[in-house]
């Protein structure tokens, strides 16, 4: 029978009281165990959101600023209803009127224009399925590298088109699925075979199934050599976009001129919105930290206070017993040790219960006590959305690791020792004669 046995026996002599104290301590310790990893998890989630926001903001800014110096010029579209084909099916086509080389020369001569890129768009049908063909000039590598927006942006399989490609094609994924073609396969359109070099991800739910190839190939395929449907004009500076647009309209009054300038305003609007989201996330981060620390402090103080009061009560109740022990020759250190051990033991038992509780309720408690991580909202007219759960909240995901358990146990030992230190010192310093007289 050592000091540990005595401490254990004393704890078990008043079972109901010990049980109540252990429940109260374990509730406080549950918070002490759950909150630190929850704060870290909450901070990590919020930081990820901030990073996502910043990354997306950078991407949007670069995309929009590139598009902002771009002007698309095309003649007004016409609808064409040719006679039914052999199967009696009518194919309504949207005809984009063609423009010849003179347009190119005139547009190139406009001041402040850096580059004019001819594009050919053609609506065709393959086995009664509408296919939107898109021809891009692939004869100038530097042009492609300067204006990456000319090529499909979202290649999910294979590769993108590159300078010098011929008889190669990129299929939008619906088109590839429709005709069961994959990268390396052959896609026949208008009687000519193309090698599928890449698959483009779906742009939008209602996007037309399209295929992208070299401008030369498409011109040859549709007998439109030297003709284009669209000119993409790249202006040297964003400030000159409006002037150049006006000049184009003055030369070709019927031409549809679409400047990307409007996207700049959207981008600014988007930037402001993202900045607000980042600020909100930053505030959330600070709030998680301050609330969490506040709650941990309360739990720690509550835990130590429970031990302090229960041990003070125990010392008071056992004054005569302490006097007897001293009369029998127990040193101050023995008394101090036994009472502190009782406090620590109580705390350890409560910590074990708290760890068991924490394993099951950690996510619930974390989300109940800590501010939620804000997810970014959708951004108005631009239609962009960022984050995993736009406009909503991401719950804090927290798991209790063995390290957390050990940390909790260590904290419990420390709090048990601290909480019982004063009562134990008080007991150890009690003069035996006074203790023996205590009733």
């Amino acid at each position, binding site marked *: *029978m050592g000091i540990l046995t005595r401490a254990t*026996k004393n704890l078990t*002599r008043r079972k109901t009281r010990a049980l109540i104290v252990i429940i109260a301590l374990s509730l406080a310790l549950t918070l002490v165990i759950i909150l630190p990893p929850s704060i870290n998890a909450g901070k990590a989630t919020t930081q990820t959101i901030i990073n996502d926001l910043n990354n997306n903001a950078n991407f949007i800014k670069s995309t929009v600023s590139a598009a902002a110096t771009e002007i698309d010029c095309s003649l007004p579209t016409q609808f064409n209803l040719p006679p039914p084909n052999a199967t009696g099916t009518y194919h309504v086509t949207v005809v984009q009127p063609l423009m010849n080389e003179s347009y190119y020369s005139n547009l190139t001569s406009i001041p402040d224009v850096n580059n004019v890129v001819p594009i050919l768009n053609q609506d065709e049908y393959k086995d009664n399925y509408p296919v939107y063909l898109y021809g891009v000039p692939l004869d100038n590598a530097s042009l492609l590298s300067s204006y990456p927006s000319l090529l499909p942006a979202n290649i999910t399989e294979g590769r993108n088109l590159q300078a010098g490609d011929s008889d190669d094609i990129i299929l939008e994924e619906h088109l590839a699925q429709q005709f069961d073609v994959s990268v390396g396969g052959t896609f026949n359109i208008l009687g000519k075979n193309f090698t599928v070099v890449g698959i483009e991800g779906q742009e939008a739910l209602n996007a037309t199934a399209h295929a992208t190839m070299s401008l030369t190939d498409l011109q040859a395929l549709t007998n439109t050599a030297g003709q284009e449907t669209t000119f993409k004009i790249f202006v040297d500076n964003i400030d000159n976009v409006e002037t150049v647009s006006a000049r184009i309209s003055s030369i070709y009054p019927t031409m549809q001129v679409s400047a990307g300038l409007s996207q700049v305003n959207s981008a600014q609007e988007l930037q402001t919105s993202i900045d607000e989201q980042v600020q909100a996330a930053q505030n959330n981060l600070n709030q998680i930290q301050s609330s969490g620390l506040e709650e941990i402090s309360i739990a720690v103080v509550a835990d130590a206070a429970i031990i302090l009061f229960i041990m003070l009560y125990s010392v008071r109740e056992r004054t005569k017993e302490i006097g007897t*022990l001293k009369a029998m020759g127990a040193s101050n250190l023995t008394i101090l040790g036994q009472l502190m051990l009782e406090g620590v033991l109580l705390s350890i038992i409560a910590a074990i219960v708290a760890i068991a509780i924490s394993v099951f309720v950690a996510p619930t408690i974390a989300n109940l006590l800590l501010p939620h991580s804000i997810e970014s909202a959708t951004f108005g007219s631009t239609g962009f959305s960022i984050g995993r759960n736009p406009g909503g909240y991401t719950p804090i995901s927290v798991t209790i690791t063995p390290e957390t358990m050990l940390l909790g146990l260590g904290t419990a030992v420390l709090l048990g020792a601290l909480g019982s230190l004063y009562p134990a010192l008080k007991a150890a310093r009690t*003069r035996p004669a006074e203790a023996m007289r205590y009733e």
Partner: protein
Amino acid sequence: MNNDLVLKIENLTKTYKLGKRDVQPLTNLNLEVKKGEFTAIMGPSGSGKTTLLNVIGCIDKASSGKVLIDDVDIAKLPESKLYKIRRDKIGFIFQNFNLVPYLNARENVELAMELAGKFKGQRRQRAKDLLATVGLSGREQHRPQRLSQGEQQRVAIARALANDPAIILADEPTGNLDVTNKQEIVKLLANLNQKQGTTIIMVTHDEQVAAQTQRMLYLSDGKISEDKQAQKETPKHSKENPQE
């Protein structure tokens, strides 16, 4: 100090404050107790009996004077050394038994030896032997609340003997007992004294109990007013079972 003396008190004075006034329960008290003596201290309430016992037992400090136990003046010792005297030289028996309630009889006896740093095997065997000595064989595992008052006092006596102390100090050991138990406890103490040569100093109000001792001291006004030697046999210092 004479080799036969286990306790020598010279000019012991104890003063303490009670509110605003000084109370002096012991005044220039002198006393010598020989080894193996069974001494009763008697006197009216407030005469200083328990204070004297507490000073001898190192649980209260003398205000002045000398208190020598086995030649060591405990009046001058600090608390850091006094607990060793209490542990090794003194055995206490209290009126209310003062057993540790959550320990059984054997553990209560062992506790005194554990504090003295004795090994588990050694102290377990001695506790068993001592409980047998006081007539509690088979009751080792019983907690105090499952023992009668007489049995509890026997456990307390076994506990007081555990470290083979120089002096057993008994403060009204029969004060809470019925007549039968009172007689048995006094008989047990007397037997321990006679057969094992244990030095016992016992405070009592009871003339009949005091009559069982070899020496009766009467305390009044903080001094020994009468020192009476009883006509009894000297201890035999045998190791026979004092129950017999």
